[in-house]
């Protein structure tokens, strides 16, 4: 339940559920996200996503008007799918509901079954649907629900056993995904990353405007997930009743390992251990070296950051991961806050800081920036760690903000920012130390040239 004492919300620290689903669907090859609702939601989310990734983000909408809101959105849903089929040539349509269609009670699975029957003479795309009312979740729930829907609805038969690993990475940046894919490749296994937005949300300049950006997990790979050596799911927070990995394990006996988003040494170690376990391949020397360099950097930089007090906020999974990292390097996470509510947030924060902090950091869920700010006044942080939306507060308190995650709306290159594994952690650590050094230099009357 929410830790906020207030009824109203001011400057929310979360986004709405279908946004996460739409973004996840974008990580499947040939897929178009489709929101069943009125036009505004889709347009707002597109704008929001575009300003982070700086890539086209086409989200179709069933564009319900007043009449459909009263009599049901079925006809618009069907017509809309036909339209995206014909114009976008999508091989997958990812349908997510919105608050409106959930409230009027449109039965999407039934409507889709009708649709398939009605148009059985046409070459129909795969249609995956997910229920994403925003009044009972956040964009992270939408993301995980969409991933779970992809696995449970598209994987229907047990595939031939293969040396493959399924990776459900959570909402990390395209640069992170590329890094993770390199790692899996270096373990010598084929990888199915679900979803994979590394290409579709970070495209090169090309000859033409692509209706559907290339890249993303292929349908064939998704179907083959049932024959993989196992799955690794990143993210410690509990979001959905049954995750994609759990679903594949239950139905097809595909072993599912759950780890945190691999940020910091301990969380990255766990990720590499999971890979070793599934593949029986030892971690390649390249990554042992990266780890070694990271430890060396920790040692070289520890005094600069020692004892700094940080407020961490944002999505549950990333907050937990960042907290794990900060605790490792001697920065004190004095408040870990998220707009979501999830059962195990506090327990997981305790788990990742175990042995590093004398006691678990203060954690608050279901809060907004007003709540965070109110508490911050007493906490006197040295540093904020989170997405762009904390900027006004950082400015007001005159403390630096280290931008991580999504959305980054006031800086360039959020999609190219790495956070994960030893390599990503290295970049985070370097940035953090430099943020602290820069502040020190700025605050100094003398302005030392060596620090």
């Amino acid at each position, binding site marked *: 339940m929410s830790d906020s004492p207030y009824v109203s919300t001011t400057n929310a620290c*979360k986004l709405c559920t279908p946004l996460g689903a739409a973004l996840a669907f974008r990580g499947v090859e040939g897929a178009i996200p489709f929101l069943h609702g009125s036009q505004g939601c889709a347009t707002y989310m597109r704008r929001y996503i575009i300003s982070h990734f700086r890539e086209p983000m086409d989200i179709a909408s069933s564009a319900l008007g007043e009449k459909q809101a009263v009599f049901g959105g079925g006809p618009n849903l069907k017509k809309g799918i036909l339209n995206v089929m014909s114009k976008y040539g999508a091989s997958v349509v990812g349908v997510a509901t919105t608050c409106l269609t959930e409230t009027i009670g449109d039965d999407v699975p039934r409507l889709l079954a009708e649709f398939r029957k009605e148009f059985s003479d046409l070459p129909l795309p795969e249609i995956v649907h997910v229920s994403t009312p925003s009044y009972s979740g956040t964009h992270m729930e939408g993301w995980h629900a969409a991933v779970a829907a992809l696995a449970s609805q598209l994987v229907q038969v047990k595939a031939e056993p293969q040396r493959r690993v399924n990776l459900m990475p959570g909402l990390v940046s395209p640069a992170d995904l590329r890094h993770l894919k390199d790692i899996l490749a270096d373990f010598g296994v084929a990888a199915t990353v679900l979803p994979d937005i590394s290409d579709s949300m970070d495209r090169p300049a090309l000859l033409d405007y692509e209706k559907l950006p290339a890249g993303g997990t292929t349908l064939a790979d998704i179907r083959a997930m049932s024959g993989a050596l196992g799955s690794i799911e990143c993210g410690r927070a509990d979001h959905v009743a049954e995750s994609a990995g759990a679903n594949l394990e239950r139905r097809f006996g595909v072993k599912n390992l759950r780890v945190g988003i691999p940020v910091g040494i301990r969380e990255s170690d766990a990720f590499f251990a999971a890979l070793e376990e599934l593949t029986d391949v030892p971690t390649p020397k390249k990554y042992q070296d990266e780890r070694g360099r990271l430890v060396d950097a920790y040692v070289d930089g520890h005094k600069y950051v020692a004892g700094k007090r940080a407020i961490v906020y944002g999505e549950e999974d990333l907050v937990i991961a960042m907290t794990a990292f900060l605790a490792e390097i001697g920065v004190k996470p004095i408040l870990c806050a998220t707009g979501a509510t999830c059962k195990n947030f506090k327990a997981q924060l305790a788990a990742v800081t175990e042995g590093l902090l004398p006691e678990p950091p203060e954690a608050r869920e279901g809060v907004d920036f007003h709540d965070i700010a109110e508490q911050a006044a007493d906490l006197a942080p040295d540093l904020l760690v989170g997405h762009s939306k904390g900027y006004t507060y950082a400015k007001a308190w005159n403390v630096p903000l280290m931008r991580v995650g999504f959305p980054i709306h006031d800086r360039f290159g959020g999609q190219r920012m790495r956070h994960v594994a030893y390599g990503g952690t290295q970049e985070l650590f370097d940035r953090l130390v430099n943020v602290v050094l820069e502040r020190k230099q700025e605050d100094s009357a003398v302005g030392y040239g060596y620090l």
Partner: protein
Amino acid sequence: MEQAIFEERRDQIHRTGEGPFELACNRDSLAGAVSQRACVFCGSRVVLYPIADALHLVHGPIGCAVYTWDIRGALSSGPELHRLSFSTDLQEKDVIFGGEKKLKAALLELIERHKPKAAFVYATCIVGIIGDDVAAVCRDVAEKTGIPVIPVQSEGFKGNKREGYTAACKAMFTLTGSGDTSDISPISINILGDFNLAGEIWIIRDYFKRMGVETVANITGDGRVDDIRRAHGAALNVVQCSGATMELAKMMQDKYGIPFIRASYLGIEDMADSLYAVAEHFKDRDPGIMERAQQVVREELSVLLPQLGQYRKDLEGKKVAIYVGGAFKAFSLIKAFRHLGMKVVLVGSQTGTKEDYEELAAICDPGTVIVDDSNPLELSKFVKELDVDLFVGGVKERPIAHKLGVGFCDHNHERKEALEGFVGMLNFAREVHASATSPIWRFVPRREAMAKAEAAKKEAI
């Protein structure tokens, strides 16, 4: 190529010079077509947002509020309450049992905390569905707190942005007529429909001031509740933009007998014409006013024109596509581009009316494509086909242009650079120039391929 156009949308696209002008508009967006449009709520939020000392509470689930958190560049010279994003963040149980209780509690809590001059409560889609009596809650809270608490009937599905403008005007109209007007000059105006993006209203107010005109209320850029309350004391309403606040002007005309004129502050001619129109209106009461207006224009132009000329040299003959929210802005842009020697080959809007488009068609060069409620597929098709050098639009259009290797200029509510007034024209020209002449376009694959094809053609001759 034609494949990019939906059969149902054919009559929402027109090429000037090809047959009699006929363009369908003001329709619901086509399901599945990825419209660039937002919703009724968006329209209301755009208009009311800059009122800086009011509380803007979005009644609904979180998204509607979070996506409109401080996304605009509307500046305030004082309070900044408008930059916060307030929401009732409805949860499942509110949806089942109704959100009125929560709305009331949220309002009381926020009014107590921020002591605003008034509160606007925006009804979003599901509020319309669950049937909360927002007006009743507002009345109740207004009574308890002693400030105006105004419902904005902006349920998103009830149409497009235009309906949102109407809802906003109705909401503001309830405020007018309640303030003291005794000390207002007879040479006075309200500025309607300007949102003070990047401080633009300060530029415009300064021109009027130099002409000897008092501005009573800015509606709504850098707006204040108390100013709107006394706006009925102004002698004239100067209304920018075709859609946003026209309705308020009409209501004020009906009720208070205040005449209005339309204005635009974009581009040289429109800016000057607007000042002259105001001077014309007051010339009987103030015989010197026309001369002062001319003086303002002269002073500004003497600085601006030589600098513009510099840019024009490089921009001459380049082709432009315009896709904006409202059609009225497109008129000014077309004229502004003519000053830069550029040619508009595509123009469109999300919400134009039949009259808007007819007027547009009349001032466009032959062969110009005009589109209503377009989408990425169509826009990208035309950008390629018409070989556009520069695109003017909003955030959602930017990646379309950039992917095709075309310069882009942001011209919507999110801009952070003043583009109005004479100085704005200079900023605009500078931005257009910076983008359209950047060396980077050479490296974009589409341009590279075009250059190669061109070279091959030359070789062949």
